[in-house]
């Protein structure tokens, strides 16, 4: 079985701090693998373990996105295809999906995995649009996957109701969002092995642009007299809030 998994390099959303005066988000840490993609990598490897075959990770993104592909290789993925595109931030989901579709059309993947949306811009479109362009079905909100000899049994969550499918390949499986940590992660040994695994770099064969234009992300500007207590001893913070409430006559 030939399995693919979509991987996106995103900003570490947890490291974003909002400047209260301007509303400007400041990104603290280095880029990371999109949270739900890490789950997708895990599931893709699980499927290979039960059915044999290979897993290829796919990413569109700047040179630095190679890091996330290596991370996937170190977790157990067999090879990677990197569509190198420095302008990803200025490309819309249609261009991005087209770039992947053109790069992988000849690969004949049986199963593709993806997360639901990216942590950064989170359009939730690229994965489905890729499936449309490849002419394959997708199932979203997938919660469990069981492989059989000639089919894959999938459960999805349809607004709180489980739905079961015996899916025929090729298919894109979009995993339901989840809170726990991915089952598999990279190891030191994986890192050593990853060095010998192939990463194929390709240029996008379609123009990377956008009919949409968007502004820089901005949070609401907070009022100049907002009080925000962070890292203060609990009792002091509570006492300050109590007196603030009294000052503003908000207690009975």
């Amino acid at each position: 079985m030939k399995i693919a998994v979509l991987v996106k390099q995103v900003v570490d959303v947890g490291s974003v701090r909002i400047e209260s005066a301007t509303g400007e988000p400041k990104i603290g840490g280095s880029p990371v693998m999109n949270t739900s993609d890490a789950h997708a990598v895990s599931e893709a490897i699980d499927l290979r373990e039960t059915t044999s075959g290979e897993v290829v990770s796919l990413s569109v993104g700047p040179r630095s996105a190679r890091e996330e592909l290596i991370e996937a290789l170190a977790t157990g993925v067999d090879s990677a295809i990197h569509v190198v595109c420095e302008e990803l931030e200025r490309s819309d989901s249609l261009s991005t999906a087209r770039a992947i579709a053109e790069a992988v059309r000849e690969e004949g993947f049986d199963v593709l995995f993806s997360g639901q949306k990216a942590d950064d811009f989170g359009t939730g479109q690229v994965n489905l649009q890729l499936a449309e362009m490849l002419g394959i079905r997708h199932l979203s909100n997938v919660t469990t996957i069981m492989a059989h000899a000639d089919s894959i049994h999938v459960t999805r969550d349809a607004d709180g109701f489980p739905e079961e499918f015996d899916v025929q390949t090729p298919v894109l499986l979009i995993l339901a969002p989840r809170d726990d940590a991915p089952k598999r992660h990279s190891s030191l040994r994986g890192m050593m092995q990853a060095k010998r695994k192939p990463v194929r770099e390709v240029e996008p064969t379609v123009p990377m642009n956008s009919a949409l234009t968007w502004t820089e992300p901005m949070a609401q500007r907070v009022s100049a007299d907002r009080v925000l207590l962070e890292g203060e001893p609990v009792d002091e913070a509570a006492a300050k809030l109590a007196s603030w409430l009294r000052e503003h006559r908000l207690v009975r």
Partner: protein
Amino acid sequence: MAPGNRVLVLAEVMGGVIIPHSHEMFAAGMAIAEGLQVPLVLGLVGTDQDEALANIGTLDGSIETVTAVVDEGEMLPYEAWVDATSELVRSVDPHIVLASGTSFGNDYAPRMAARLGLPMASWVTSVTVDDQGLVVTRDVLGGRAETAIRCNSGTPFVISLEPGTIDPSPIGDIAAISLSDVFAELAPTSPGSQSTAHRKRLMGADRIVSGGRGMRSEEGVALIEELADVLDAAVGSSGAAVLMGLSPHETQVGSSGEVVRPKLYLAVGLSGTPQHTFGMRESQFIVAINKDPNAPIFQLADFGIVGDLFEIVPALIEALKKPA
């Protein structure tokens, strides 16, 4: 009217009934059509549209209705929808297409946009028209910030709305179904609802203490209730707290709960999603307690404490009980 100059709303009709979210899409569609001064076309997509049409009765004369019957046959539902809606969009040839932002909409709309080769903005929380055309906004970076999106003039584009963020409007004679009723049905009947009889009513309360998913358990709920008692406040909740069975639906604040304007709104362990802030952003003073310094609720807050509610709330109760 020249083609390519209309707004098309793809309303979802299930067995003759227009789903609640489609009323939000219709409201957004009307606002856009009015702003751009172009006609609105109401597309009824699904099954048994005759019944829906009969219930709609008379629409504003400038609004045209078209129907697309979805025949699933051997297809998955969303596949049949991609077929039906793509064909409808081609024949109407609109400038703006409003597709559904429900989980079902998220299954078909991006594929429809890809098939038609149209750009798409999803999870849209507001639509406005200025002198350069349509601007939509949506959340990014996990709700921490927002971006405004425009489309190159001349290119048609697809929009799907974040459900529960735009005021629904009636469609002809069909009143907007209250999201609140829909939510009430989804909510498990919680043991908490028995204890509410003696509680202060949310509506009209001067002070409200609301708890969210961060309450985690009955223990967290008890803390919130104790704080509310000390402040002589009503108890509110977030949608997540209701769906977890922690709080009764009557206490839910937001687009599918109550819209409140107290003097004090104290939000504890809730993140401040657009659906929630819809119901409380007009409060006079907003206080937030949350362990995530980036929680969007802090952007609205006049006073915020970053910390664990299980530590902060007991300390606050103590501090309030002490004479000033």
